């Protein structure tokens, strides 16, 4: 195998596939990265058996040559050293060559590295995904769906299914739901025409997979194709192939947990609320759960307080655009509230409370596709 490649393109691809490579894997060869050169270009593969990523660098695209002098072949090299080597090479092009004794030479300018490789035949074949359950959507939309939900997955393995995001496609409506049981984030999206036929009941994608995917995908309006099977999901763009296993098990039914009626409704600027909670949390950090308290006052005033017995307290009255319904005193995690407000990503929000011990909802004022739910904190 032999080729000369643009260092910048190689670096980007290396960084992408590194997201799937773990030094702690039960299959030793998966600590390596597979390089495969064909006349069309160079393909890099990394996998930890939960996530597999392939990144393709075309020999030529839009008249720009990325890879030249290709002698087809493949090799697995040690992923631990490769990214740093590529990053620190002196020239903008890199020559990579492997001989039949699995020795790899990486050369750029006058720098020359020799690495021991492994036989690519020993690298596991990535599973083929055969499914009719495919649909497409713009990458930037997928990224915002992920960003608005994935932060709410559970970080604890006590209920493994909650470490994933439930993804559902029903009559052209795609929905993402995540909950760690203390808060819930949900986002819906009506897909463009052409995707109406596809539907699948629901799959649970590991939160970690989606987080890594979001890091790799660039913010573009190009489409990404998503294919779902019983135990895997594949995300495919022009040059990227991102395969993740699905979580097994039943995702708890969450729709019935979302209150339909509310007793106190506050509407106000998301930023004002966020900043005020942020300030209150400065002095709430010392107490457990980082709890702040919200109390409705006269008229449209609401009071937000944070308090740590040893440090001090902070009180702030902010004016809402409207406060309707019963008076309310409620405590909640400042972090959850700030996460939710950031995810809602709208200027004006509506916060709907149903009581001090019951979940409350945060939604954009004019968009019912985004929903954030938070369970309050009980104080004794």
């Amino acid at each position, binding site marked *: 195998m032999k080729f000369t490649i643009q260092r910048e393109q190689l670096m980007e691809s290396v960084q992408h596939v590194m997201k799937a490579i773990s030094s702690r894997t039960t299959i030793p060869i998966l600590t390596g990265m597979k390089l495969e050169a064909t006349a069309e270009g160079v393909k890099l593969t990394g996998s930890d058996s939960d996530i597999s990523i392939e990144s393709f660098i075309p020999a030529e695209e839009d008249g720009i040559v990325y890879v030249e002098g290709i002698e087809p072949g493949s090799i697995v090299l040690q992923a631990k050293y490769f990214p740093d080597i590529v990053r620190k090479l002196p020239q903008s092009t890199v020559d990579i060559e492997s001989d039949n004794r699995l020795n790899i030479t990486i050369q750029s300018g006058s720098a020359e590295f020799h690495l021991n490789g492994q036989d690519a035949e020993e690298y596991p074949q990535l599973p083929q995904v055969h499914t009719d359950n495919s649909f497409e959507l713009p990458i930037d939309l997928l990224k915002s769906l992920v960003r608005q939900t994935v932060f709410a997955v559970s970080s*604890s393995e*006590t209920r493994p299914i909650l470490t994933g995001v439930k993804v559902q496609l029903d009559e052209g409506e795609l929905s993402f739901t995540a*909950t760690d*049981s*203390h*808060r*819930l984030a949900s986002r819906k999206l009506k897909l463009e025409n052409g995707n109406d036929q596809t539907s699948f009941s629901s799959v649970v994608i590991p939160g970690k997979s989606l987080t890594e995917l979001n890091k790799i995908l660039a913010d573009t309006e190009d489409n990404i194709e998503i294919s779902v099977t019983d135990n895997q999901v594949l995300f495919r763009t022009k040059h990227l192939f991102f395969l993740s296993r699905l979580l097994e098990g039943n995702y*708890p039914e*969450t729709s019935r*947990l979302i209150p339909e009626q509310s007793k106190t409704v506050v509407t106000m600027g998301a930023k004002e609320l966020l900043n005020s909670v942020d300030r209150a949390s400065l002095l709430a950090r010392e*107490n*457990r*759960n980082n*709890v702040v308290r919200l109390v409705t006052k006269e008229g449209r005033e609401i009071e937000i307080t944070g308090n740590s*017995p040893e440090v001090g307290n902070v009180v702030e009255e902010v004016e809402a655009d409207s406060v309707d319904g019963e008076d309310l*005193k409620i*405590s909640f*995690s400042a972090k959850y509230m700030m996460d939710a407000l950031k995810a809602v990503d709208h200027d004006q929000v509506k916060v709907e409370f149903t*009581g*001090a*011990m*019951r*979940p409350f909802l945060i939604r954009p004022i004019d968009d019912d596709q985004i929903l954030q*739910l938070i*369970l*309050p*904190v*009980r*104080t*004794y």
Partner: protein
Amino acid sequence: MSKRYPTNGQIIFHVDMNSFYASVEMAFDPSLKGKPLAIAGNPEERRGIVVTSSYEARKYGVKTTMPVGEAIRLCPNLTVMRPNFQRYKQASREMFKILADVTPVIQPVSIDEGYMDVTLCADQGSPPEIAEAIQRRITEELDLPCSIGIAPNKFLAKMASDMKKPMGITILRKRDLATTLWPLPIEEMYGVGEKTAVKLRNLKIETIGDLAEADTWQLKHVLGINGERLQNRAKGIDSRPVDPDAVNEFKSIGTSTTLPYDTTQENEVRQVLRRLARKVSDRMDAKRVLAHNVQLTIRYHDRRTVTRSMQLQDYIGTADELFSISFSLFEEHWNQQPIRLLGITAQDLAEKKEITQQLDIFSYEKHAEKEKLYEAMNNLTDKYGKHMFPDLSSTSKSTQVSTSFQKDFLNDYKK
């Protein structure tokens, strides 16, 4: 300031009640005075062990932790009594009240001993005069003997109170160390347990003086940071202050029980754990704390002891919660061998008023059910203050709570 009062450095007392439980029984029933007396866990059962004994019994060789049977063999006239913890606590409280009359800087260490910092008590006389006055009041008012150590720091005070028993007052000055402290065998040193003593003897350290002169690096190597600490103490250096609040920083509440006979019956274990859980829960209630960690202790027939604990997601405090966690720990870790002792300890405690509980989407409803009640209570509390809702259940129960080694009542002398 009195001329006889030392002006530089601190003056610390360690007050140590002499064979406290036995002495309290003798004060309660003077006919027991002068007789060999032992207080034992369960006198009628073969495994009851001697918790404490009078000096008269000690002459026969009766020792703490000795099985009752053996003690009686050594001393056939021995009177064996069950402990009356309520009595001991009452006596302890009165004793600390007497100390509190001298200075508020008191650190109770256990039911029968405590430190006092009398550095600023020159107006009450010289340190030995103050010590004599304390000893006299405790004898006259409570009919109890005690020994008092007087020294420039806690460690030396503790060592001093041990030097003359019963009814001793011992002054240990730094300049006396070479003659009084250093000749003592290393085992006599407070803070040196069996294992440490063996390690030290391996280093040819036989006396406290040897320890003071030993190579610091070598000590650190063998005993870690504790090695250096022990050496400093041996040199007479101990900078720990007398901390009246130390009792408040209780880290755990626990209780254990030796079974009347070794068992492998899960049913019996279940019953015992239920009982222990209730006890711990009552004591937690009395202290208004919740726990974040529960530890189970199992001692097997061969005295091998294992402790296993579980870190929890939420704070818990009810007997049911404590029971179910300790029982699941039991099921997970019991090796099917006969069990002699079981214990439950609630750890990682926090005061209820500082605790907040993040509600859970799948279980919030059990809290939400009582929303109206909590709301009404909060409103009344806001209006009339915290005393609106004294916790009736816990105040009535706290009086029955009892174990030998709990420290949570040691604050009560302040009341």
